[in-house]
């Protein structure tokens, strides 16, 4: 115990200025950053500042009206909650209202348009085999022969999958260069052109397993006719395409290729869907130049299904070796497969930027809404707690803090100066960090969090108190201030670290496991606990070391709070009696 202590002491004692400078620079940087970013106030939660309220109405699906029930609504609420409140710190509220409404309240200063998209998107994800595809022309009728200009490079957006397997890399084209793919598409479209020209041709639908029965044939015919007539450039048609289609049946869909052209598809039944996705995250794919992509990890059963479908598709001719990733009826990506992909993951690429990739990843991660919702209304709401409450709270809090200062001054006198400065440093760090976290991770401060921050002041103050009491104990044992400050530190430090570790453990566990407001609380707790340690180590201790050199403190001035006499230190003359003291029984 002695050796490390000495080493630490020596360094801490010799460089108190360094730590002080460090923390002051940190404050200056944070304050500077705060003003530079223009967010000089922490974002307040909906209870304190009001915000926007979005009402969504569940859209009944034809033939499946009973889907709008309590179970599905509750599931939708919890999924929306997680989408809009991913880290739990944004203080958004989601609740059902009436039979088929969901109300989403988001605090002021949140991008409400983005929030609307986040909660309103159903995020139904399907992997469907492509049966036919072609560029959908702007003239309403698509010519079956693909325009050569559009297609060759039309496919890079449909970049495929399975990056981890090195084996795939050489043999498999999925990750190969866009040009190969482009060519493949051309082939695909060419191969495609003839059959689709004859709209009655059944060959189109036959690859789909469900198209064997008589009615299925009729369905396939109908589908073929619809496909021929489909114009994806027409927004109305696009909105209607694939409506009411079941996952187990072939369907039509539209999607944009990387040229920005609309492409239309006939798709087979869904083989893998969003529930098979375990995790999803946005990542920047610099290797293939695909830009921002969304990486998905499948669940075990999902991986098996995916391997099976890709294995099957790989044996087909283009374009039937493609599968389409369909999100809410739109094809977002339509990669080729050359061999079964068994890695248990896939990648969606397309025209993503960082934000849209992250949004999509979030939606896939938290799952699809069980129902489709339409935004009914968006309106501003005032704070749930009137302004008077906040004001009363602030006044009361200020009075309480003033009492703390008075108490500290009365009890610690000169030392209170150090304690109050430390509290100020801690407050400045907390405030600036919270203000900066508002725009960066959507952190919003609600009333419970404000109260929690006030309790955190008590915990921060406890660290000083533990240390000060240790110093005083040392003085009472007859030490002069400078050694007392250094000798009290290792023990005070241990106490502070052990007890703060418990708080931090609570914060970390709750943050990882929970969702919503509890997660937000855990975040605040973890932040203030870390700040406590930072302030005590980098500010209070060095400052006390420096102050111990001042005669005012070192000589134990009556008002320094370290007066040996008023602390009841033993008068030095007693020292003479010491040698006569009995041997410490403990050593015996």
């Amino acid at each position, binding site marked *: 115990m002695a050796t490390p202590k000495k080493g630490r002491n020596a360094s801490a004692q010799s460089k108190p200025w360094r730590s002080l400078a460090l923390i002051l620079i940190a404050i200056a940087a944070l304050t500077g950053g705060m003003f530079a970013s223009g967010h000089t106030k922490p974002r307040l939660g909906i209870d304190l500042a009001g915000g926007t309220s979005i009402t969504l109405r569940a859209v009944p699906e034809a033939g499946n009206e009973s889907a709008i029930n309590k179970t599905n609504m509750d599931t939708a609420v919890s999924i929306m909650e997680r989408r809009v409140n991913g880290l739990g710190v944004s203080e958004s509220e989601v609740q059902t209202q009436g039979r088929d409404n969901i109300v989403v309240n988001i605090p002021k200063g949140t991008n409400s348009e983005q929030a609307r998209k986040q909660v309103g998107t159903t995020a139904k994800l399907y992997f469907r085999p492509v049966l036919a595809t072609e560029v959908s022309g702007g003239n309403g009728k698509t010519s079956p022969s693909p325009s050569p200009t559009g297609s060759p490079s039309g496919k890079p957006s449909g970049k495929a999958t399975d990056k981890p397997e090195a084996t795939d890399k050489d043999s498999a084209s999925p990750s190969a260069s866009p040009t190969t793919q482009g060519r493949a598409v051309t082939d695909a479209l060419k191969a495609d052109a003839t059959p689709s020209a004859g709209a009655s041709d059944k060959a189109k639908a036959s690859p789909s397993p469900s198209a064997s029965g008589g009615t299925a044939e009729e369905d396939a015919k109908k589908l073929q006719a619809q496909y021929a007539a489909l114009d994806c450039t027409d927004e109305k048609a696009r909105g209607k395409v694939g409506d009411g289609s079941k996952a187990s049946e072939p369907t039509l869909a539209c999607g944009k290729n990387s040229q920005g052209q609309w492409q239309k598809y006939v798709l087979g039944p869904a083989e893998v869907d969003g529930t098979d996705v375990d995790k999803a995250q946005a990542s920047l794919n610099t290797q293939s130049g695909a830009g921002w992509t969304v990486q998905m990890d499948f669940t075990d059963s999902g991986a098996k299904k995916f391997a099976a479908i890709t294995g099957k598709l790989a044996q087909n001719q283009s374009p039937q070796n493609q599968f389409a990733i369909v999100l809410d009826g739109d094809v977002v990506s339509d990669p080729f497969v050359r061999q079964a992909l068994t890695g248990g993951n896939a990648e969606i690429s397309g025209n993503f930027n960082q934000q849209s990739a992250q949004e999509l990843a979030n939606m896939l991660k938290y799952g699809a809404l069980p129902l489709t919702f339409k935004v009914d209304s968006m309106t501003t709401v005032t704070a749930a*707690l009137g302004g008077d409450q906040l004001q009363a709270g602030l006044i009361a809090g200020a009075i309480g803090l003033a009492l703390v200062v008075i108490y500290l001054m009365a009890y610690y006198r000169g030392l209170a100066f150090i304690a109050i400065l430390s509290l100020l440093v801690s407050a400045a760090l907390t405030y600036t960090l919270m203000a900066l976290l508002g725009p960066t991770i959507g952190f919003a401060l609600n009333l419970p969090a404000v109260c929690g921050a006030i309790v955190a*002041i008590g915990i921060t*103050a406890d660290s000083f*108190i*533990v240390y000060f009491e240790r110093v005083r104990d040392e003085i009472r044992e007859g*030490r002069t201030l400078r050694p007392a400050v250094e000798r009290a530190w290792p023990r005070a430090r241990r106490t502070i670290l052990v007890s703060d570790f418990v708080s931090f453990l609570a914060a970390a566990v709750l943050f990882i496991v*929970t969702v919503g407001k509890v997660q937000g609380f855990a975040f605040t707790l973890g932040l203030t606990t870390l700040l406590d340690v930072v302030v005590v180590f980098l500010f209070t201790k060095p400052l006390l070391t420096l102050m111990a050199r001042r005669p005012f403190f070192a000589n134990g001035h009556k008002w320094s709070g370290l007066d040996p006499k*008023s602390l009841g230190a033993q008068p030095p003359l007693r020292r003479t009696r010491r040698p006569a003291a009995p041997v410490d029984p403990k050593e015996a």
Partner: protein
Amino acid sequence: MSKLGNLGARLHRGEVGYDFVKNRKIWYGLSILITITAIVGLTVRGLNMGIEFQGGAVFNTPKNTSASVSQAEEYAETASGHDAIVQKLGDGSLRIQVAGIDTDAANKIKNTLADDLKIDSEQINAELVGPSWGEQIANKAWQGLGIFLILVVIYLAIAFEWRMALAAFVALIHDITITVGIYALVGFEVTPGTVIGLLTILGYSLYDTVVVFDSLKEQTKDITKQTRWTYSDVANRSINSTLVRSINTTVVALLPVGGLLFIGGGVLGAGMLNDISLSLFVGLAAGAYSSIFIATPLVADLKEREPQMKALKKRVLAKRAQKGETPQTGEAEELYAEEPADAAPAVVGPRNQPASRSRGRGRPSGKRR
């Protein structure tokens, strides 16, 4: 201050001290009594769950309602007998939410509200709302809490020992039960703010206990190497030596929260503040109390059952009897009475030893003898 400062000094030297461990039965009894009251209150009255947990009804008034938010709040609260949340929407209409209402009650309240607000009741749109703090959030919170408690008990058992882990756990349950019980008795509505308050207390209660245990662990390090003090004696002394710190910390933490509760909630009438600050105030006070009066004596109790400590106690008693000293096991006054006499040498004692030795061990003995 000087009085308290002196108290610190006298506590430090052991001139004064309260025998927490000896009188533990009184405090155990008191705590059990409060806990039973809390549990009874909880079972009889139950918790008044807010709209966030159980859902309720929402009333939307027509556009440009003239009544102010606070007026509407008052009307809604008298009409329903529950706390109401009132928000003004962008088009000037009011959204009034009331907890724990079913369709029938909602219709009645709707009519009363219409009368109060002087609008046609047809124009008020009443709907039931679901909880925003749904089951899933609650389940996850319980899950997180469970994992945390298991981890913290393991951590304390490693960093200290299992007895302390157990005592800290008991103290924690004690604090939470009392706080929840008081909530039930006072009848305040439980909001997410309350839950956050409870979680804050959970952290604080453990934190406070750990600070006290840290001192206990340090002082009892070499306890078997001496024959003067039993474990309970040392435990008691360790509480006394951290007493000033405990008082100061509690005062510093309670003052602002008390300000919120009594001035903000009481005098200035900010209702919602009450919910949060009451749980914090009760919990902080209970947390400080339990770490001193419950947790440490409990550790002493458990420790004294160890054969090693039993043997130590025997030796200590034998030595005391041999010396012809009167003190019985826990006779605090006499125990402490003898101390000032030889406090001085002990106080200076560490100084003539190499620093490393005096620091690592001997604090309990070095300080007092």
